């Protein structure tokens, strides 16, 4: 859990290193705005992981501390370090135009987990028991994250899981070659260690032998629905909007079920030519599993094109290296079966790219009369998953996507029943689910205790000296070492990515700009001599006559001027700043100071 604002924490080596004990905390919107603007990776992370700080710890050779900082935001670092969708890297300042490639944030997260001591001790500061009981339905990322935080906050938590093993999609959706099961087991176990009761093989629902929601509401002070999206979305076809055609068609299956059954232990086979329809991680996983099951020709059919699908470039490249082909701009419109009812071809319509969807993806618009056929022996459809509500004996309000509707307090329309994760958001990413689990837990705690117990503030710590060297900026991004193609084939268990060694991790860590370092000029002591501008590595120090203030009170762009009588201040544009420290060294009046500005939780 986030560090609380007490001297106790400055004792341990960790995020406060590199600065003295002098710090203040602020709740000014401009300071929150600064962190939001200047630490784009953290802002982009649904769980709000304090990325610069954990990378700094790796650079300091303390993977253990780095792991702990990760765990404050996300209890499953080792898992996310492997399979996260990395919204952070897309926003990394190092990847901005002219700055090179983003830092391998995700690989470093994994490095922290891989490289911590074998006997690593977790850092959990526990609250006193609250006497409250909470039931959580579903042990996926959202459920696990919530269970951990709630138990930490002193509540008595029980988790109900339908399957034999906890983990939800992590255990039943993601293949082992991307996520080794011992890692999964260790981290889920750690998350639930603080006295959480885990009941697997227990289904909540109305069927016989199943526990009805009503009885849970009676036995517990609060219930959290975190059952995720456990049903594949049907494939709509031209003359068959509900996609009945899929059912009972031989060698045609929904990728979600295919993987679920495989992980339950069923033996799976595929034909020579495998066609995959879909554009997400599931689609890629299906394709790569098919490759390992011996398919000779695996093709992924996309509505748009590979530039616009929500998976990482690395995943696409690895898939291609495993001889998987991606073909774009096509929508399936009909399925062709041979006489004995086995799939033999898919009919597609040619698409053209349309405008942008609100989620930043592209629209694909089928072109009338452009249909064509592609033959296949196995069809796997992975166009998404949806929530199911049949487990509920009482109706709850649903939103227009048919997902549970929750308020700002994460409570459903039923008093004391909360919801989080894909069950609320619809099929999304693991890190999103973790983030929601934590937020829901926070809200539930507030509801259970009748008042918020913690709030977020900006902690501003003095930093004595620049922590980086200019030379670091020229280190190339280190790619994740992978297993040779030959060793991967036909081995579903062999993890493809082999991880960074300590040296590689530290080299990559050097690349991080440590964006949470705030360089500022004390204008009262500035003599406008421009010594700092003279040594600046980029256009990062500016002569300004004003600054835009956003509606929310945060700062916008600097307004620059070269007219001497308008230069009100010489100011460091922290968005251009790459924290190299050159200006700090040369200032004649020592009016440049450095602070580390971090979001931390504070006792109310």
């Amino acid at each position: 859990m986030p560090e609380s604002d007490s001297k106790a924490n400055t004792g341990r080596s960790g995020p406060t290193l590199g600065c003295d004990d002098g710090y203040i905390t602020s709740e000014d919107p401009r300071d929150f705005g600064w962190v939001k603007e200047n630490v784009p990776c953290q802002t982009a992370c649904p769980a709000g992981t304090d990325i610069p700080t954990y990378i700094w710890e790796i650079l300091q050779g303390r993977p253990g501390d780095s792991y702990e900082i990760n765990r404050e935001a996300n209890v499953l670092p080792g898992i996310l370090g492997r399979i996260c969708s990395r919204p952070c890297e897309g926003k990394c300042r190092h990847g901005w135009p002219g700055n090179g490639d983003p830092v391998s944030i995700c690989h470093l997260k994994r490095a922290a987990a891989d490289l911590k001591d074998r006997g690593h001790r977790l850092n959990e500061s526990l609250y006193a028991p609250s006497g409250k009981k909470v039931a959580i339905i579903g042990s996926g990322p959202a459920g696990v994250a919530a269970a951990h935080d709630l138990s930490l906050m002193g509540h008595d938590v029980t988790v109900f899981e339908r399957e034999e093993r906890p983990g939800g999609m992590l255990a039943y959706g993601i293949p082992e070659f991307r996520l080794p099961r011992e890692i999964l087991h260790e981290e889920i176990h750690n998350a639930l260690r603080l006295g959480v009761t885990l009941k697997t093989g227990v289904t909540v629902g109305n069927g016989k032998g199943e526990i009805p929601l009503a009885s849970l509401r009676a036995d517990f002070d609060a219930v959290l629905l975190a059952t995720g999206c456990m049903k594949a979305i049907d494939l709509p076809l031209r003359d068959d909007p509900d996609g009945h055609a899929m059912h009972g068609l031989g060698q045609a299956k929904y990728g979600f079920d295919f993987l679920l059954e495989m992980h339950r232990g069923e033996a799976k086979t595929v034909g020579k030519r495998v066609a995959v329809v879909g554009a997400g991680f599931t689609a890629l996983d299906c394709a790569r599993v098919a490759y390992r099951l011996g398919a000779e020709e695996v093709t992924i059919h996309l509505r748009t094109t590979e530039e616009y699908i929500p998976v990482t470039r690395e995943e696409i490249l690895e898939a291609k290296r495993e001889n998987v082909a991606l073909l774009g701009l096509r929508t399936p419109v009909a399925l062709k079966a041979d006489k004995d009812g086995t799939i033999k071809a898919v009919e597609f319509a040619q698409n053209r790219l349309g405008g942008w969807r609100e989620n930043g993806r592209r629209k694909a618009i089928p072109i009338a009369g452009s249909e064509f056929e592609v033959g296949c022996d196995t069809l796997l459809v992975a166009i998404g998953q949806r929530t199911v509500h049949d487990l509920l004996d009482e109706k709850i309000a649903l939103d227009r996507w048919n997902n549970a509707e929750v308020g700002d307090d994460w409570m459903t329309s039923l008093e004391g029943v909360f919801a989080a994760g894909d069950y609320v958001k619809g099929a999304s990413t693991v890190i999103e689910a973790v983030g929601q689990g934590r937020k829901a837990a926070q809200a539930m705690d507030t509801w259970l205790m009748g008042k918020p117990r913690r709030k977020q503030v900006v902690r501003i710590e003095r930093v004595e000296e620049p922590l980086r060297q200019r030379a670091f900026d020229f280190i190339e991004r280190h790619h994740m070492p992978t297993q040779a193609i030959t060793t991967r084939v036909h081995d579903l268990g062999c993890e493809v990515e082999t991880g960074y060694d300590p040296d590689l991790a530290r080299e990559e860590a050097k690349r991080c700009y440590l964006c949470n370092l705030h360089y500022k000029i004390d204008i009262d002591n500035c003599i406008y001599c421009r010594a700092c501008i003279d040594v600046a590595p980029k256009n990062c120090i500016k002569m300004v006559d004003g600054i835009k203030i956003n509606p929310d009170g945060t700062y916008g762009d600097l307004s620059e001027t070269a007219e001497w009588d308008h230069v009100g201040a010489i100011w460091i544009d922290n968005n251009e700043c790459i924290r190299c420290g050159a200006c700090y060294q040369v200032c004649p009046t020592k009016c440049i100071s450095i602070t580390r500005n971090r979001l931390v939780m504070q006792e109310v």
Partner: protein
Amino acid sequence: MNEHVNPVYLEDKLDEIRADGHLSYRSKSLPTWCPGCGYFSMQEGLTIALNRLGIAKENAVVVSGIGCASRFPFFVDTYGFHTLHGRTMPVATGIKIANDALSVVAIGGDGDAFAIGGGHIPHAARRNVDITYMVFDNGIYGLTKGQTSPTTAQGFKSKTTPYENLDMPLHPLMMLLSYRASWIGQAYAGRPHHLAEMMTQAIAHKGFSYLHILSPCVTFDKTDRTYGKLNMQVHDLSEDHDTSDLIAAMQQASAAEIPALGVYYVEDRPTLSEEMDEISRRARNAPPIAE
């Protein structure tokens, strides 16, 4: 220490600066001094001082000689006169005598003042012309690319003292004290606030005021008069120093290797203009002299 931690909110600061108004005393063009040069501090200080004293831009004249410091007039938006090497004092005197309403600020470097121009200063001081002379002392010739000056420390190596400078440097404060300049003070480029305050007092003074300003030359003096060293050495004149006591002032001026910052000596006596008025008065009252 915590002032480093306390957040600064730029727009508040900028409002404050704009409201204060001293920016309007700057010229449009950026100073061409080396980045880091102490003279930027003087530039900032003078604009603040003129602003504080409410002297209209058109009533201020900045006169200078030749040298880095003497580029000054180009960077302030007042009347300015960039004259010849060392000849600042006579030009400034002429301007002042022509129009008492003007505030005349003469500026020069240590070479311009005490080498070629050394002969002019005693007379400007003796006559108590109501002008302010600010000498930016960086102990080096910047514009001719780093030769020694009359205030260069002993043992300093420059292109013209490759085997070290063995000459004893001049002591401007002692010189000016002995010239009886009627206001004498010292400031330092690295203390912008104090500098601005001293400039304000010097210009406000009636009579010849001499402000000596210590400044590093970041380009040609990497060893002797650096910000680092000066920051260690500078200190303030003691509170109880009596600025009317010339001998005490001389003792203070000669007390330390780097004399203290502050006002050493203040004296109220007739200015050259007042003496001329007095001569006119006597002339009018005296009986006509026979042919």
